[in-house]
């Protein structure tokens, strides 16, 4: 009997802790949203920053972030999906030590701090390959950084395709690649889309690597040129909060910028989670 009261106390304590943590984080988000939403307007989203970041909108950081996200995905998706197809479908004819090394490398890359990717981007793309501080250098750097995310999620999607699909296709005389292209990839498509969305969302939120590969402190005119510097939402938040001539004056703009960034990132994560859970349920 004593044991059961003890259990009740423990379980309730666990419940309180779990709910408090979720409540704190959600509370912080709501606090930011409440302050950010009042700043948002069509004007804020479509006009460039003015007056040394202390006025105007955030159109150029938004465009910069979108451009970088797109370019990152263009570089990372083909490689990521290719690697995932290899790992899930083609490992039979290859020395298992190579497969093991590839997996080890992917796991390691997933754990490399983003600032170290920034150093690589600076050394390799900005200086060695002479792309300079630019959208191109930043996107290439982020494509390296998002690669492990995309590979892991795509491989999971491919592995979830039932064995019978492949065997049926092979039995009908299709070659291995025909099977992959016409049977496995289409069935894994929702999962692969999830992978791309996760990669996009990761690229949207990254900050440190951008600081080292081409983010500008203040560049109100979006050039659209991939060999030029750029503004991005994430770095804009950082610069306004830490290095603006008057951080308090820019506070409303900061809340607005964070709200826009959070809406972009969280909505993509939400879609990814929904697609994945729908897909898992369907397979069961």
């Amino acid at each position, binding site marked *: 009997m004593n044991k059961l009261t003890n259990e009740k106390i423990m379980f309730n304590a*666990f419940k309180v802790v779990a709910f408090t943590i979720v409540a*704190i984080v959600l509370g*912080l988000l709501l606090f930011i949203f409440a302050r950010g939403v009042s700043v948002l307007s069509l004007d804020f989203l479509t006009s460039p920053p003015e007056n040394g970041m202390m006025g105007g909108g955030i159109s150029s950081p938004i465009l910069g972030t979108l451009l970088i996200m797109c370019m990152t995905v263009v570089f990372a998706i083909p490689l990521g999906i290719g*690697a995932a197809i290899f790992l899930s479908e083609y490992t039979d004819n290859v020395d298992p030590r190579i497969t093991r090394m590839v997996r080890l490398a992917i796991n*390691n890359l997933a*754990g490399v*701090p983003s600032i*170290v990717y920034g150093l690589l981007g600076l050394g390799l793309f900005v200086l060695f390959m002479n792309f300079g501080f630019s959208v191109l250098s930043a996107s290439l750097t982020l494509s390296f950084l998002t690669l492990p995310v995309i590979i892991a999620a795509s491989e999971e999607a491919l592995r979830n395709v039932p064995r019978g699909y492949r065997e049926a296709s092979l039995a009908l005389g299709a070659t291995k690649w025909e099977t992959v292209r016409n049977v496995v990839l289409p069935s894994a498509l929702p999962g692969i889309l999830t992978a791309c969305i996760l990669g996009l969302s990761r690229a949207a*939120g990254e900050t440190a690597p951008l600081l080292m590969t081409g983010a500008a402190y203040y560049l109100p005119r979006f050039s659209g040129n991939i060999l030029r510097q750029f503004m991005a939402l994430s770095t804009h938040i950082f610069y306004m909060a830490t290095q603006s001539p008057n951080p308090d004056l820019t506070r409303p703009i900061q809340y607005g910028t964070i709200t826009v960034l959070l809406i972009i990132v969280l909505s993509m994560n939400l879609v990814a989670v929904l697609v994945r859970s729908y897909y898992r349920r369907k397979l069961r």
Partner: protein
Amino acid sequence: MKRGSERPIEGALFFSAIVSIIILGLIFIFLLREAIPTFFEISIIDFLFGREWFPASFKNPRFGALPLMMGSFLVVFFAVLIAVPLGLICAVYIAEIADPRLSEIMKPVIEILAGIPSVVYGFIALVLLSGAIQNAFNTTYRLNAFNGALILSIMILPTIISISEDAIVAVPRDYKEASLALGATRWETIRRVTLPSSKSGIAVAIMLGLGRAVGETMAVLMATGNSPLITLNPLSSVQTMTAVIAIEMGEVVFGSLHYHALFAIGLLLFIITFAINFVVDRLIHRGMGVRG
């Protein structure tokens, strides 16, 4: 004939897979290439154990990494200290105690929270958390190691929760049922059977959380005040290895000693996270051996 025609495709897929190895190699080569010149001018011992990081001094710049390593250690230590018990409690709650329908909601919520960009957490620490901590502890520094540790612990919680939750759920049903059949309560079963059997998965969760904490840059940079002090006082301002690179790389002359020294810090960081990943890899393989 058909097989032969698929060779180029297989080659391309193989290449995509190898790219990960190439990137890892590139990281190592470029860090080494840019870090090594540091040691033409400073000995490795002076670099690793130098007590002063003062690169801007015109007459006598000093590049001792010790204060930065101490800063990282202090912040990460307290972050892990806070996040591990809280994370485990949440994981146990979601896996074993909560109504399954509630768990089905909480899991994706945590997954989504994991995607909040670190610069947003940094902003929270800088603008909201720091004032609260200063009021509560009456600290000299508004921005300090504890502020960084607190925000970092929130950031690594999703990693710790979701991976240890997976580990707890993976414990075979028979174990729990045997314990319950012997008259143990659910709580006793969790404490004496479920948690001990999932300990290797929980260890992986903690190590991955640790790895994330060590490499985290923006939040820590915005939260800790960035004074390279050697201290064990969590209420003092500190500077971490990640923060020093992010701040100073922007104003450094390329090819200077300062530039190379920042790459040397990056190399150190890479080696530390590589070691953490290695441990994780060992843990996972050992865990598989036991189960399978």
